[in-house]
């Protein structure tokens, strides 16, 4: 089958040189890490454990998100409740971990180690998976309704419902798996006291190790393992299967809406309870003592808010434009996404080190542009992945072509409008991540041009946990406004 659009004019494999150019920061690390690769044999247990834990977390999160998506679509959940669900995703995972720890501590429950990490991951990433799965679940529910109309019930109805969801589940699972595999914050807070190590925490420990002969090289070698473990997710591709235009949804179920709302409130409360208590109340004296004024009064915060807002807006905008520009060329897009996935996965510290090795001798170094470049490289995979969705887009463009539209006009008039919800999901996915990004900016920000992430980190390192909590809540508040104002 020929693909609609411009594919025919792209017989030259453009993605190869492009991917190679994009891979440079990783190649630098590869060269540094390779001599130490054999010695990573002693870390085989951590490598396997990272794989299993990220896999398990992915399955749990997918299961939860799929249920939420069904509840949300079948219950016709409105913007407000959905925004509530998504809020939890907008604090940095590190803050989620601490919030969860203190919330459950208030309730007298001590959660650490593997269960703690899995719980924090599931709570934190389920909203993201929900957002990515929702359009597909809507279409599958339409099929379910059709099947029911034709008399299919029970298992047979499920057989109509589930198979069309497998491809999107695989793709969303790939995104989740990459996010969990590369996550540092949650295992750092909840794993280390129980001596639970994953590759990012181990790589970081090695980078700082007082006894390593070559800290950069040894940490880079673990980065190579992360890239290897990422391969299955990187290779996942999606074939658009569903062509339905308007989903034929089953009648609205208030019970589903209630369940959805209950989960949203409970999940948010579990994280927020601890953060709110920290931010509003002196945890020692129990006195009402909001820390917001102190947080906003920190010398860094205002500058950080401004810089991060600007950086995140520019990065999100550029990446989504890039994603749209590449969308008509699936082969090119998937080719370079393979490289970009690795950049998304590498712990920020390692990507940062690669960029320094590569760019320190250039005039770019020490300017805010370096951080923008790092954000673009780090988050580009998300933009491409978000826009890879959109079943029916190819068909619509093909129809336009049959009716005589040029490829450009067919995409402009038919393809891109169908991608709008995916564009929105992509923006919602990337903007908060870029806005509250910590590890890349901790290494690469231009002296004097701090980001919010640097401010949060600085507050945490200075023992200002209450201010960091308040800052987390402020970030959520800002994001909540954006969520409430989103198109339906």
């Amino acid at each position, binding site marked *: 089958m020929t693909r609609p659009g411009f594919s025919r004019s792209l017989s030259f494999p453009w993605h190869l040189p492009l991917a190679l150019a994009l891979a440079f920061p990783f190649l630098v690390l590869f060269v540094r890490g390779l001599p130490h690769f054999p010695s990573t044999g002693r*870390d085989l247990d951590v490598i396997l454990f990272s794989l299993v834990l990220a896999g398990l977390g992915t399955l749990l999160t997918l299961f939860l998100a799929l249920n939420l998506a069904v509840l949300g679509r079948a219950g016709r959940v409105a913007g407000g409740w959905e925004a509530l669900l998504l809020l939890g995703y907008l604090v940095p995972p590190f803050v989620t971990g601490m919030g969860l720890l203190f919330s459950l*501590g208030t309730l007298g429950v001590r959660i650490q180690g593997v269960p703690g990490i899995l719980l924090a991951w599931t709570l934190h990433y389920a909203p993201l998976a929900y957002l990515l799965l929702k359009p597909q679940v809507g279409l599958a529910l339409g099929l379910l309704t059709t099947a029911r109309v034709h008399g299919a019930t029970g298992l047979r109805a499920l057989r109509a419902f589930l198979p069309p969801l497998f491809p999107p589940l695989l793709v969303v699972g790939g995104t989740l798996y990459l996010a969990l595999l590369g996550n540092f914050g949650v295992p750092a807070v909840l794993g*280390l006291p129980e001596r639970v190590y994953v590759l990012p925490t181990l790589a970081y420990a090695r980078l700082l190790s*007082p*006894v390593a002969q070559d800290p*950069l090289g040894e940490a880079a070698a673990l980065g190579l393992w992360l890239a290897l473990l990422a391969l299955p997710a990187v290779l996942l591709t999606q074939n658009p299967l569903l062509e339905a235009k308007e989903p034929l949804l089953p009648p609205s179920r208030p019970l589903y809406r209630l369940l959805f709302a209950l989960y949203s409130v409970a999940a948010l409360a579990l994280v927020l309870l601890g953060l709110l208590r920290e931010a509003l109340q*002196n945890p020692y004296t129990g006195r009402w003592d909001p820390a917001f004024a102190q947080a906003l009064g920190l010398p860094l915060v205002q500058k950080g808010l401004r810089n991060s807002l600007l950086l995140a807006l520019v990065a999100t905008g550029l990446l989504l434009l890039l994603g749209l520009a590449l969308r008509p060329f699936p082969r090119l897009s998937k080719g370079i996404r393979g490289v970009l996935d690795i950049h998304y996965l590498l712990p920020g510290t390692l990507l940062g080190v690669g960029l320094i090795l*590569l760019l320190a001798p250039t005039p770019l170094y020490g300017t805010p542009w370096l951080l923008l470049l790092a954000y673009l490289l780090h988050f580009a995979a998300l933009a491409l992945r978000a826009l890879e969705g959109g079943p029916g887009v190819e068909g619509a463009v093909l129809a336009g072509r049959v009716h005589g539209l040029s490829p450009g006009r067919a995409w402009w008039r038919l393809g891109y409008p169908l991608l709008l919800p995916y564009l929105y999901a992509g923006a919602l996915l990337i903007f908060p991540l870029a806005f509250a990004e910590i590890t890349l900016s901790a290494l690469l920000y231009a002296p004097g041009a701090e980001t919010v992430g640097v401010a949060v980190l*600085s507050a945490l390192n*200075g023992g200002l946990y209450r201010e960091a909590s308040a800052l987390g809540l402020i970030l959520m508040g800002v994001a909540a406004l954006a969520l409430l104002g989103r198109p339906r």
Partner: protein
Amino acid sequence: MKRLLILAGMALSVGLAQGGTLTLYTSEILADVNALVGAFRAQNPEVQVQVFRSGTGEVVAKLRAELEAGNPQPDLLWFANEDFLRELAGKGLLRRIPPTVPGYPVQFAHGGGLYYEVRLLYNVIAVNTQRVREVPASWRDLLKPPFPSLLAMPDPNFSGAALATLGTLSQRLGFGFFETLRAGGMRIEQSNPVLQQKLARGEYGLAITTDFGVRQEVAKGAPLATVYPRDGAILVPTPIAVTSWSKNPELATRFLLFLLSPEAQRLFTERGYYPVMPGAPKPKGSPPQVVGIRARFADPETLSRFNALFGLRR
């Protein structure tokens, strides 16, 4: 003629440097650095000071990568990793500044002025007074039950201060000290700040951690107390140095010496640190006299033993 031009160029660059830019790489708390930079700039308004502040690990990783790429940026280095400074000094990458400030204790100018302590920080026993009524008075007291089961310390693979605890105490009390603590249930946290937050909220009763951070939490009302052990609180080195590649060594030296001035020492005290200059006031709520022992960082062998004992990775 050529020589004259070069000389003129050098003179010009020195002249420009007087009103130049300083770049400081540090792991100090940013609010503290900003206050010090502000005070320095009030006296030297023509000097721009650019601060890159991050965790010690990030600062060291960044500098290592910059050195490898052949374009190191900072004029001044200030972080809690004496080993790395020693490594740099060994390669001739630090500029020696003779310790000529009257009254400055010369033992804090390492290697005859390769790097300086500008204020002091101790590892002490921190106590959550709501969980522990009877307080240990010495390091050895920590071995008495039930103390080990209430105790935590930061991971020496992450924290330079903890590496100092491990090296110093295993040398003085033998490695068996840590074996007994482990058998009694001592736990390991990632960093001092995380440990102090958990201690303050009662997750632990006792911690081996830095005095300065505990004092800050006490000021916010945390039920914490610091115990400076009878047998000596561990003095954690957090030195500052001028780099050999600095294009503004005179300015960098001026900044370093400013940190020893009465004004800077007063700023340190206000922020809970012990001043390094004799006669400067002591921080609020701290004992006037501290028995300090010089930290000894754990060697790779000791650290490996510790890691094996606690199941830690590096």
